[in-house]
């Protein structure tokens, strides 16, 4: 579906991504994991054709978009949810309808799709609310509805549950699982290893802008690479720490 060939991104003399080769296959859920600052967000921006790589090329369905109109056509088949989704001016309805209005769909079709997308994310009845007055979790769900409403062929999710409470995180994960069940291709970037293991068919580990390993979650757990093992163990340990703290909090209450 999307292929990155020898992609490097350099910004202000700093190497953000270096010689990345990744293929996102149709229908799979690809997890991109790595510590904060590893280059995950930039990688997703490159996949969405917003960020132009300094080197290498991005193929969408086997073709490298050559000009702005080809890029736009490809981008219109991709849905994205950023880590801190920004709400556009207006209501929740306006936000979810934005992508549909710019595609010049009929009013009835927009109405139908907005209602369905809001129902999918559990926000029925939120249509008239000012989008910027919502809580962080609600905004994240609106952003997901906004991306799903355009019926994308591929969904790119950048740390979709970061900064969310566990309950909202589970709701979002559930929505991602449903999208996956419907056969949608999903790329999810996260620093939450257990989440990647739960959701992804295949995982790519990225560190300091480089791909250090990739494969199925099971395969990665048994990796020979010290760097990979160290990262995975640290990730699991952090998760266990969090569960331990959560348990302690629960008991003390």
């Amino acid at each position: 579906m999307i292929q990155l060939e020898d992609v490097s991104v350099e910004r202000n003399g700093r190497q953000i991504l270096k010689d990345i080769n990744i293929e996102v296959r149709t229908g799979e859920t690809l997890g991109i994991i790595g510590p904060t600052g590893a280059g995950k967000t930039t990688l997703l921006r490159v996949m969405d054709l917003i960020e132009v790589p300094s080197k290498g090329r991005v193929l969408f369905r086997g073709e490298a978009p050559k000009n702005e109109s080809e890029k736009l056509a490809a981008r219109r088949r991709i849905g994205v949810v950023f880590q801190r989704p920004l709400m556009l001016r207006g209501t929740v309805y306006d936000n979810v309808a934005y992508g549909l209005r710019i595609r010049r769909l009929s009013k009835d079709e927009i109405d139908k799709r907005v209602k369905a997308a809001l129902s999918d994310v559990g926000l029925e009845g939120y249509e008239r609310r000012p989008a910027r007055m919502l809580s962080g979790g609600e905004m994240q769900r609106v952003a997901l509805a906004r991306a799903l409403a355009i019926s994308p062929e591929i969904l790119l999710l950048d740390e979709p549950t970061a900064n969310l409470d566990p309950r909202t995180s589970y709701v979002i994960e559930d929505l991602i699982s449903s999208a996956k069940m419907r056969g949608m291709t999903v790329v999810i970037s996260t620093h939450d290893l257990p989440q990647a293991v739960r959701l992804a068919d295949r995982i790519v580990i990225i560190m300091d802008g480089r791909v250090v390993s990739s494969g199925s979650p099971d395969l990665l757990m048994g990796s020979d690479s010290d760097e990979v093992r160290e990262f995975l163990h640290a990730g699991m340990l952090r998760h266990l720490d969090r569960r331990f703290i959560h348990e302690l909090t629960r008991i003390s209450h």
Partner: protein
Amino acid sequence: MDEITRGFIRAIELILELNPEVIEVTLRSFLIALSSVTIASLINVPLGSLIYFHHFPGRSGLINLIQTLYSIPTVTVGLFVFLLISREGPLGSCGLLYTPYGMIIGQSVLITPVILGLTISALSNVSDDLRDTAISLGADRFQTIRTVIAEARGPVLAALLLGFGRALSEVGVAMMIGGNIRGYTRVLTTAIALETSMGNLEMSIALGLILISIALVVNTVVGRLQEW
């Protein structure tokens, strides 16, 4: 002191009894300033967007120059437009000197830097992430520009209103280009200058009070719009 007090009382009476001359001068000032803002905004809001969305060599120098021209003396603009539309000037044949149309051109030129600069600044304050959000949702270049402008509509409207305030309260262009002709090009500021020099304090104070009230309303609305 008594004279000033009497002047104030008589000025308020002139306003309350809707003195025809006060009303006429106020309406003319409004119409000329409004026309100037309309022309200046039709040119400068799209031009400001063009400068904001396009990166070209010398762009930051140009923005600096525009910002420096915010406080250009009104008489300098008056002189420039005078040279342009006077009988010997390139637009002399149009017969614009000492007409309200000439004043509109002069005021449009005067408020151009303010509207242009503040439009660029309003657009710059819209977060890049918001622009990326529009692009990622499939907006083309024109749709992205429209979304960013809609996002900055409060500050852009505030810029237009500030331009209106500057046009309404300036005296240099109105005097040099309009010539302060009674019943034709006399506006609030030139009328105040003339009436004061003639010792007609009550009329000057009445017009001054109207000007201050308008400035107050403009400032209040600008403050509200910037948060909109």
